[in-house]
């Protein structure tokens, strides 16, 4: 990512052909991978190619995808967030404690838990910027803090580790409609959020100045700063975006499952990163795509549910999962290198 090399000006102004534009996009390989995985399970299983199966894959893929898009933006900006998974459970527990135990109205609990999410994101961002420690370590700390605080407060306040919401709190019309409805063909509302968020993030990355800032802080923070990009502000905003996405997913879980449970989301943080990487993000930052992260999430969930559809001996499940993900990643990398060579 060169932002400030004047010599490159001529190259940058050259209009690329449509084929080249498509083939050299970060997400191109993942699209091929998704199609391959879809065809594979459609042939290998009896029921994968059906409307029911589509909702069985899309529903869990939606929350994974929403998180993966936010994590992809953060990774393009050059940082990691390992606290994102645990935060989903922590914020759900916050909702439950504020309503079921403290008796606050649902809308107020939503605002307070959202404020907490913003706070955690800002904490992550400020810590990374002020301490100059790698975000891998800082957010690993936050990961444990969120997990421990969630359990500690849950046990202290309620004496429970699973809190059930009574109808008074769980069946609030606007929240039920906004977070837990199923408008059409078994496709739950988070899927629509997922599509909208992916479109929004893609527009942001490719069509706005802010998107250029994200690429530049992840590509080379010092040069970005030199040309006037507010590096710290961008990075903090990206961390906050991840936490707020975790809040959104926590709302989906809370109102769908009418309960909050300690441990929800823990371990998912790596799935978010994996999905982003399958979708073309580089671990080193400065390169990637939002739509790719969404396709990465779709691949991950197609493999996970597809293996359940196939009903192969479950003892081998993790082996199949690993092999399929490696295959998808290999295909992705292979397609990308071929496409770039063919076009250059």
């Amino acid at each position: 990512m060169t932002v400030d090399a004047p010599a490159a000006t001529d190259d940058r102004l050259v209009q690329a052909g449509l084929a080249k534009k498509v083939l050299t996009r970060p997400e191109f390989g993942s699209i091929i991978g998704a199609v391959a995985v879809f065809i594979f399970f459609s042939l290998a299983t009896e029921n994968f190619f059906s409307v029911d199966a589509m909702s069985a894959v899309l529903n869990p893929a939606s929350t994974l995808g929403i998180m993966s898009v936010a994590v992809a933006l953060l990774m393009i900006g050059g940082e990691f967030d390992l606290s994102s998974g645990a935060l989903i459970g922590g914020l759900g527990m916050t909702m439950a404690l504020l309503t079921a135990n403290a008796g606050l109205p649902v809308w107020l609990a939503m605002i307070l838990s959202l404020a907490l999410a913003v706070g955690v994101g800002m904490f992550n961002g400020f810590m990374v910027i002020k301490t100059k420690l790698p975000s891998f370590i800082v957010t690993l700390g936050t990961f444990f803090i969120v997990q421990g605080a969630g359990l500690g407060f849950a046990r202290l306040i309620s004496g429970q580790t699973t809190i059930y919401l009574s109808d008074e709190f769980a069946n609030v019309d606007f929240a039920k409609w906004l977070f837990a409805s199923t408008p059409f063909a078994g496709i739950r509302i988070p899927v629509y959020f997922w599509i909208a968020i992916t479109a929004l993030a893609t527009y942001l990355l490719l069509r706005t100045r802010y998107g250029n800032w994200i690429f530049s802080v992840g590509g080379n923070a010092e040069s970005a700063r030199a040309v006037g990009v507010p590096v710290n502000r961008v990075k903090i905003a990206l961390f906050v975006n991840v936490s707020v996405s975790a809040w959104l997913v926590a709302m989906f879980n809370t109102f769908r499952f009418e309960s909050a449970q300690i441990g929800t989301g823990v371990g998912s943080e790596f799935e978010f990163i994996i999905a982003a990487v399958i979708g073309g993000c580089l671990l080193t930052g400065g390169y990637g795509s939002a739509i790719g992260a969404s396709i990465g999430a779709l691949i991950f969930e197609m493999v996970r549910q597809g293996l359940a559809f196939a009903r192969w001996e479950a003892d081998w499940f993790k082996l199949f999962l690993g092999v399929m993900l490696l295959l998808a990643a290999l295909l992705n990398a292979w397609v990308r290198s071929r496409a770039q060579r063919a076009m250059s």
Partner: protein
Amino acid sequence: MKGRIWVALVLALVLVVSACSSDDSDDTTTTAAGDTETTASDTETTAGGDSQVSQTGFDFDLIFHDKDASGTFWGVMKNGFDAACDAWGASCNMIGDPDITKQAALVDTSIANAVDGIVLTLPNADALRDSIQRAADAGIPVVTINSGSDVFATTAAIGHAGQDEFIAGQGAGARLAAEGATNILCPIHEANNAALQARCAGVEAGATGATVNQVQIDVANLDAAFETIKTEVSDESVDAVITLNPDVSIRARDAIAEAGSSAMLATFDLGEEVLNSIEAGTILFAVDQQQYLQGNLPVAMLALNIQSGLVVGGGLAVLTGPGFVDASNVAQVKDGVAAGTR
């Protein structure tokens, strides 16, 4: 050159996948009675296709709340499930995820996959109620097992096989108190499992005159659990430990020995090493919920319900425990553990 290596790698992995899957697709085609062949490896399914006798041809999925059946406990449950499926000529798959949202997603997948019946552990009835209802609406009977004997009746499940955790805890607590325990440590190894809380609460209710202290450990990190328990029993006033998992009990046994504590030890659930320790006198007794039954009984409950509309339990849970294993009956139980049924 580099391109060829990529292709070779991809091909090798494809071969691994298809090789692994081909024997299993044999199973699927033979047991799915009356179905025409639809699996990917059609060409390979003919060999050995007639060797298995299929009886019911039902497809049953068991969906539990752990990452896989690698632990002692789930492994025995899987043995029970597989044995019953063999006996009924059913095709069975046991799959799990500790995250409740993902467990619910697996139930939805089983429904979309049009299986004939679902066996489901119930760590959180509220979270799974909707999915169980959807299965029932689709005409797929659900039997819940393991956790949740007190709440399964609020779902659309046709029955439940499990242990009432509070009652089991009470029995264990009473026994510890009778042995003279006054300060009991109860390590909780899965923070999100309400059944474990119920066990500790039961111990507290049953152990008259004793105090019970919980401590949080992680069954996925037994080395850390060992250190935590060792620190706790270094306090000499702790005179009893009751663990809630066989793998944890072994670490607790070692932690008690290494800390030089004289605390007595009891545990929930069995394992080979637990029984050796009961024989050696380092573990006083084990509470047995007979999880083999929790895997085994639901297959009959589902098959009989599908075939004849029969319902087991009359709306109440079928209790698979508690049984107690101590020095008096350990030899008999050991034979069962070696056979994978206890």
